[in-house]
C-alpha cells in the first residue's frame, strides 16, 4: 500500500511543480509586459 501511495504522491508532486512553474512564469511575463507598455507610453 505504501508503494501505491508513493507512486501517486510522486505523480501529483511532479504535475503540481510543473503547473506552478508555468503559472509563475506567466505572472512574471504579464508584469513585465505591463511595465514595458507603461515605459513605451511614457517615451511617446
Amino acid at each position: 500500500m505504501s508503494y501505491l501511495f508513493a507512486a501517486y504522491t510522486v505523480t501529483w508532486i511532479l504535475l503540481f511543480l510543473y503547473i506552478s512553474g508555468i503559472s509563475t512564469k506567466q505572472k512574471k511575463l504579464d508584469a513585465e509586459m505591463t511595465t514595458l507598455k507603461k515605459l513605451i507610453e511614457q517615451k511617446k
Partner: protein
Amino acid sequence: MKNLYSRFLPSVCFVTMLVALYAIFIYAPTERTMGDVQRIFYFHISTWWVAGVALFVVFVSSVAYLWKRERRFDATALASTEIAVLFMTVGITTGPIWAKPIWGVYWTWDPRLSSALVCWLMYVAILMLRRYIPEESKRSNLSAVAGILAFVNVPFVFMTIRLFRTQHPQPVIAGPGGDESGLAPAMTHAFLITLVAFTFLYLLLMQKRLAVEATEQQVDKLHKELELA
C-alpha cells in the same frame, strides 16, 4: 469555438481526472497476485502513452518548422517536449516504485527500461540545448533537427517488449494476444478513462504552455519597440 475550448478544457480535465481516480480506486477490482500495488498500472501506462503522443507532436512540429520556418511550430515543439519530459519523468519514477514489490528491485538494465531511460535523456538534452544556444534561429533549427532524430528511438522503445525477452511485462493492451488482454473488463474501463483524463491534461498543459510562449513573444516585441522609441 476556440474560446469555448479554452473555457471548458480545465473543467473537463478536472472532472475526467476525478472520474479516473474513482475508476482506479473504487470501480476497478484488486488484482489477484499483485494486490493493490497493481493500481499504479493505470497512471504508469497512461503517462507513457501520453508522452508518446507528445513526442509525436514534437516530431511533426519539428518537421513543420524546418519546412515552413514559422515560429509557432517551434513554440509547439518546445511546449510538447517539456510536457513529454514531464510525463516520461512520471513514468520513469512510477515504474521502479511498482517494480520494487513485484521484482524485488527498483531497477534492472533490461531493454525496455534502458531504452526508455535513453529516450528520456535525449529529450532532456534537447531542452538543455534550447537553453544554451542564445541565437534564436540557430536554436530553433538545431532543436527541430534533434526533435526529428530523437523520435527515431520512440518506436524502438515501444517495440522492445515485443522484440526482446524482457523482465518488463509483455504488452497487456494491444499485444499479440489481441482481445485476450488479460485485463478484467472493469480494469480495461478504468484504464481507458485514465487515458482520456491524461489526454485532456496534456491538452490543458499545452494550452497553458503555449500561452506563456505567446506572452514571451509579445514581451520580445515590446522590448524591440522600446529600443526604437
